[in-house]
């Protein structure tokens, strides 16, 4: 019962992140949304491991945490090196 409430909360969090990704006025706003989305997904996979009783899913969460960090750092590097040329007047 509590696990279903948890899954509901996480789905609501995913929807709010997707709202920010779709709405965000600038590229860094969307990257913040994507970063939080990957964190929520890591938590979601852990909850699913508990629901299904399979330990192996925790390895998936590990890999996703690694990849999410690399993605955010790559986006930050891209933005800092002039990744928004259409915004420079």
């Amino acid at each position, binding site marked *: 019962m*509590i*696990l279903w*409430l*948890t899954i509901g*909360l*996480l789905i*609501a*969090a*995913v*929807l*709010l*992140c997707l*709202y*920010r990704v779709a709405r965000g006025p*600038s*590229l*860094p*706003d969307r*990257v*913040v*949304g994507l*970063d*939080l989305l990957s*964190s*929520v997904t*890591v*938590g979601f996979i*852990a*909850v699913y*491991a*508990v629901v299904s009783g399979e*330990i192996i899913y*925790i*390895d998936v*969460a*590990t890999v996703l*945490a*690694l990849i999410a*960090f690399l993605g*955010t*750092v790559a*986006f*930050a*590097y891209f*933005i*800092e090196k002039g*990744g*928004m040329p259409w*915004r*420079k*007047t």
Partner: protein
Amino acid sequence: MAQNLSALLILLGALFMFIAALGVARMPDLFTRMHSSTKSATLGVGLIMLGAALHFGEIGMTMRVVAIIVFVFLTAPVAAHMLGRAAYFAGVPLWEGTLSDALRGHYDRRTHRLLSDEKVDETSAGDLAV
């Protein structure tokens, strides 16, 4: 007992993640959004992982969970700092209710160097309008 504690930890972690997502959706500008998302999402991941480790109660699971928690606690602040710094250089506007910007005039926007003492002339340094 351990099952109840594990369920409580997982629920608390999910609640923190929901609050983080709420802040990302509702906060007025980029930096307040990052302030909302990074800290509480990190805490949420840690709590959910602790709850999962408590639920399974095996040594292999616990080691993986500890590895994930250490990794997330190390990398989330680094990623947030890099993204915030890049966004500041890209000229993302602050909220109109912002009272003070302590970095204004201390970053050379062309070389991206932080100068603590002397002020940089903002107008000649190429203001990147958004």
